């Protein structure tokens, strides 16, 4: 455990203990929101984690959003995987960004597609823009090297005991393999050559 992480864990423990006696999760949600607005994402993360431990399960999704902003995408994916599905479109939007940052593009696309119009005009527009950017990557048949990368990640994360993250990489590998298989079959039926490498 690094010094920074240990310090953060200690701060979290103190805040949880204080929060249990003083007003519960609400002040921590408000403090987290203020930090998030001010782009102090590490401080926001601590507050949201405290709120979560004080009995607000939805705060796990907020912590995931802070992790996305800190570009700690794998941790964010893990957090969203284990968080209860908030049902709020913003939760899914940030979860999609976590997937995107961890190169889980099929996952990101699926979440963004599910947002539909329930997210409000701004997020809907951003979701459309991201999906448009993802489309060429997702349409191209993936190379064997790409597939191997996702499978390796899955194995590596499983070996580290990060089962939820490993499962996310395995699902992505499966989605890529299905696309590759479909492209190969299509190419075979067209009498065309082998699929070109995506990447």
């Amino acid at each position, binding site marked *: 455990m690094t010094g920074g992480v240990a310090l953060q864990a200690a701060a979290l423990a103190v805040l949880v203990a204080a929060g249990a006696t003083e007003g519960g*999760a*609400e002040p921590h*949600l*408000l403090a*987290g*929101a*203020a930090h*998030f*607005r001010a*782009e102090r994402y590490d401080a926001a993360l601590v507050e*949201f984690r405290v709120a979560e431990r004080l009995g*607000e399960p*939805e*705060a796990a999704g*907020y912590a995931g*959003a802070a992790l996305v*902003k800190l570009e700690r995408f794998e941790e964010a994916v893990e957090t969203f995987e284990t968080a209860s599905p908030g049902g*709020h479109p*913003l939760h899914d*939007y*940030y979860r999609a*960004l976590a997937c*995107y*940052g961890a*190169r889980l*593009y099929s996952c990101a696309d699926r979440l963004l597609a599910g947002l539909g119009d329930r997210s*409000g005009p*701004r*997020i809907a527009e*951003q979701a459309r*823009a*991201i999906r448009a*950017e*993802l489309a060429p*990557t997702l349409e*191209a048949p*993936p*190379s064997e*090297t*790409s597939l191997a*990368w*996702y499978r390796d990640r899955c194995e590596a994360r499983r070996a580290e005991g990060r089962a939820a993250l490993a499962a996310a990489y395995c699902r992505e590998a499966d989605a890529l393999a299905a696309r590759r298989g479909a492209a190969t079959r299509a190419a075979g039926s067209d009498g065309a050559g082998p699929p070109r*490498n*995506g*990447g």
Partner: protein
Amino acid sequence: MRHASLAVLALAAALPVAALAEDDVTRSGGDRAMRAAHEVVREALLERATLPARPPALPDGEMMESGARADRARRDEAERAAHDRAARHGEQQRARHAGGDRDHGAAGGHRGGMHPGDSAGDCRDAAGAVRTREMHGGMEGGHMGGGHMGGR
């Protein structure tokens, strides 16, 4: 007396109801405050919801090779920096001890095979054993070529 008993009974019956009602009010007030707090967080999240900073790119062979190259470059840089630090440290030691030209094998500053503290008069033989200034008679010219600079 009978009236008093009835009043106590009525009070006893009313108390839990009143307490319950008060709990409900507190709870519903708390719920409202919590809902408001969640709304404030969502507004902050919405305000800061941006597009990804980088375009999507599947990891392919070229990317992994360039990643490995970058890792290698970082390692090389770290080794170079560590060596520079060691050399600087040696020079500082030498200055402190004011050994000047009497320093064992130190003419011309640091050179291959030196380690922190070497220029203070101590040095290492090829096996890395530290020898002091008093022992240096047997190490004339043997100061170069320690494993420290291998390959660089």
